[in-house]
């Protein structure tokens, strides 16, 4: 029989309350788990590994010698979110993404928020992610971030906090979909206990969102990938297939007479919406990095003429930069005249002298992050770091304080996870995906739950040994 244990004192566990009893919304699953033997779980896990390998849901890790494909470990114990809790989370996500889109429209037009002095002008205009080419360009519906992945964690106070917004090319949604498929295949009986909100229609909503982004009737939508050696290639191909659109590489596209075309067996075909999974800098060698082999020469000029839609828009990175993050609350108040429903993690900006000295003095307790870093690289987790690592980071921060922010070490909540030692609590986060179309933003009930498989670890990134879980949002109001 499978046994579930509490995390060390002071941590919030998704399944168990502090008294060690199963939380009500986990009760039906907990009962089912109690009746399931460890052997069964083990054999199903092997089956899942085999299936994932055969379907090819693997990812490439940058910097690994043989570029070998690795499997992101899949954990069979779901993260379950009760209906009431999700409703609050959902509202907060929609509000936040709306504010971020309004912010992007504003800074690329009148810059009211800068004039009001609420966000420091130099933080925006001299940000490397700020794209002057976007200035004054009107996008249909004023939508910049059509697809947003918001990283949310639950602290040991039981509240959700936004860790970061991903407004460029957020990935992971394919795991949300494949994990669900795998769970339903391996554990159909677990689903019969509770009404789990479906997520399978995400590709449909995504296609609607992309089509609604264009002014053209019946627009031609494509997914653009850097190529099959990209770490997220599986997802690019998966989404193109699920939406029934072409998956293109830069070399498949060309610009002629102010429009973008793709090379097909029937001859050139006009493209109206590009869901691009390639960074701004690589899109157009004529406008950005001249050495980009994966872009389309002339793409930016077509974009500026309004003859093609890019999703997400160019220059969205300025709004998910860690140096802008502390101001999202202000954005919600300024543009929407509402109080933020989702909390930010308190953030110290090292570019401010008083906050810098606090950070330098308290590094052992803080998480220090590079402003432009991503994927868990370029960060220091104070309580877990050695003295030498802290000293090294202190030098780095002193040299370029404006490059760093710091946050108190939040304790990510834990969820029972099936590891080699049996079932043990492991820390998790959550990335729900928000789609912003002409009819407003929406979010499918669920997301990607990432789990740090090492005991005590707070780093959930797949490139650093994280795994994933299926995320269940319950439809039943009673729990």
């Amino acid at each position, binding site marked *: 029989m499978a046994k579930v244990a509490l995390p060390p004192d002071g941590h919030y566990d998704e399944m168990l309350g502090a008294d060690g009893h199963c939380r009500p919304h986990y009760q039906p699953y907990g009962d089912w788990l109690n009746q399931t033997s460890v052997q069964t779980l083990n054999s199903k896990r092997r089956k899942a590994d085999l299936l994932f390998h055969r379907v*090819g849901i693997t990812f490439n890790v940058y910097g690994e010698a043989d570029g070998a494909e690795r499997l992101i470990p899949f954990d069979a114990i779901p993260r379950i979110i009760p209906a009431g809790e999700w409703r609050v989370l959902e509202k907060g996500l929609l509000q936040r993404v709306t504010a971020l889109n309004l912010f992007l429209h504003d800074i690329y037009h009148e810059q009211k928020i800068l004039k009001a002095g609420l966000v420091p002008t130099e933080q925006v205009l001299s940000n490397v992610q700020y794209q002057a080419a976007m200035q004054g360009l009107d996008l249909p519906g004023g939508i910049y971030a059509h697809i947003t992945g918001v990283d949310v964690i639950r602290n040991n106070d039981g509240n959700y906090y936004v860790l970061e917004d991903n407004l460029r090319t957020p990935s992971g949604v394919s795991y949300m979909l494949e994990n669900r498929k795998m769970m339903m295949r391996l554990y159909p009986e677990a689903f019969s206990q509770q009404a789990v909100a479906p997520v399978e229609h995400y590709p449909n909503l995504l296609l609607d969102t992309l089509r609604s982004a264009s002014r053209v009737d019946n627009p031609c939508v494509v997914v653009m990938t850097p190529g099959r050696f990209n770490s997220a290639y599986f997802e690019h191909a998966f989404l193109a297939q699920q939406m029934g659109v072409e998956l293109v590489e830069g070399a498949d596209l060309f610009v002629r007479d102010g429009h973008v075309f793709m090379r097909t*067996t029937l001859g050139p075909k006009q493209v109206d919406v590009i869901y691009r999974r390639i960074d701004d800098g690589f899109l157009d060698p004529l406008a950005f990095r001249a050495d980009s082999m994966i872009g389309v020469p002339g793409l930016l000029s077509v974009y500026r003429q309004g003859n093609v839609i890019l999703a997400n828009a160019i220059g969205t990175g300025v709004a998910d930069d860690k140096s802008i993050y502390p101001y999202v609350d202000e954005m919600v108040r300024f543009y929407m005249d509402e109080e933020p429903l989702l909390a930010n993690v308190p953030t110290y900006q090292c570019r401010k002298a008083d906050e810098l000295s606090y950070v330098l003095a308290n590094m052992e307790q803080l998480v220090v992050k590079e402003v432009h870093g991503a994927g868990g690289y370029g960060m220091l987790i104070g309580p877990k770091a050695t003295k030498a690592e802290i000293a090294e980071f202190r030098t780095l921060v002193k040299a370029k304080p404006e490059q760093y922010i710091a946050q108190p070490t939040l304790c990510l909540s834990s969820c029972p996870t099936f590891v080699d030692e049996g079932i043990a609590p492991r820390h998790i986060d959550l990335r729900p995906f928000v789609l912003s179309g002409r009819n407003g933003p929406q979010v499918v009930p669920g997301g990607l739950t990432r789990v740090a498989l090492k005991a005590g670890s707070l780093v959930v990134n797949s490139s650093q040994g994280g795994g994933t879980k299926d995320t269940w949002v319950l439809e039943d109001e009673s729990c």
Partner: protein
Amino acid sequence: MLSRTAAHLYWMARYMERAENLTRMLKVTQTFSLMPSSRSGRQEITAPLIITGAVEDFTERYGEPSMASVLRYFVFDDSHPGSIVSCIKAARENGHAVRGSVTSEVWESLNATYLEMRKWLKEGVDESEIETFFDFIMERSQLFLGAVSSTVLRNDVHRFITVGTVVERADNTARMLDVKYQVMKPLRKESDRATDYYHWGTLLRALSAFEAYHVVYGDQITAEQVAELLILRSDLPRSLRACVSALATILPQIEGSAGLTAKRLTAELDAALRYGDLEYCFANGLHEYLSEFLERIGAIAEAIHHAYLEVA
């Protein structure tokens, strides 16, 4: 369809078919290497090199051919693009690039083959197991074709896969017949029935045509009838006629009006086979006939490339 997608589908199918054909070819070689050299076992070892036009490359790397070195070159040498291992890898890579366009069954068959092959290679395959390895490749190629046949929507995806398969297959049947005929020619005067039976029988088996021969002819195995079966019979799936006829049916079904040259060349070759007879095939010698066929199928492949796979 994207031209790049069409190219990947076409090459995915060609490489998978090539892996299967290499296996068929090597099975013949292996059978003959066990024969006394008086019955031309020695020539059989070099036959795969002649068939694939690899004599020079091989000699440079391995020197004098032996059964072991020929097998290593054609099965395991991943620096040789014409080895089974390289073909399986290339088929899988092309499939990987279009996994969004093919069914999961097709992709999974390629991926599972590749992963399992890697396991085989890691553990090492010694000469006594080579038959099992050959059977594994044959089985996986059949699995791939089965997945294509039973799961892929009949649109241009299916058409480009099939075009790749039949072009490669026609090319291969012609080459295998040609080389076998050349090996046999100097031996024919001795009219040794056993040698005849053995050689032609093995070729038929390699092309899965042994039973078919007996059903069709119910007779002694003769060179002429083998040639007729493998060139002209429309009911033998690996015959030149069957392959070209399939190609002539599919090319006009591809959407759009491109590819006139490819379609015309194919229709001409189809007519030549449809209305040809043995006398026609042997008129200037079978070797000359087959060489011309290989040239023509090569020109068709080039025209297909130009029209569909590399659109400007």
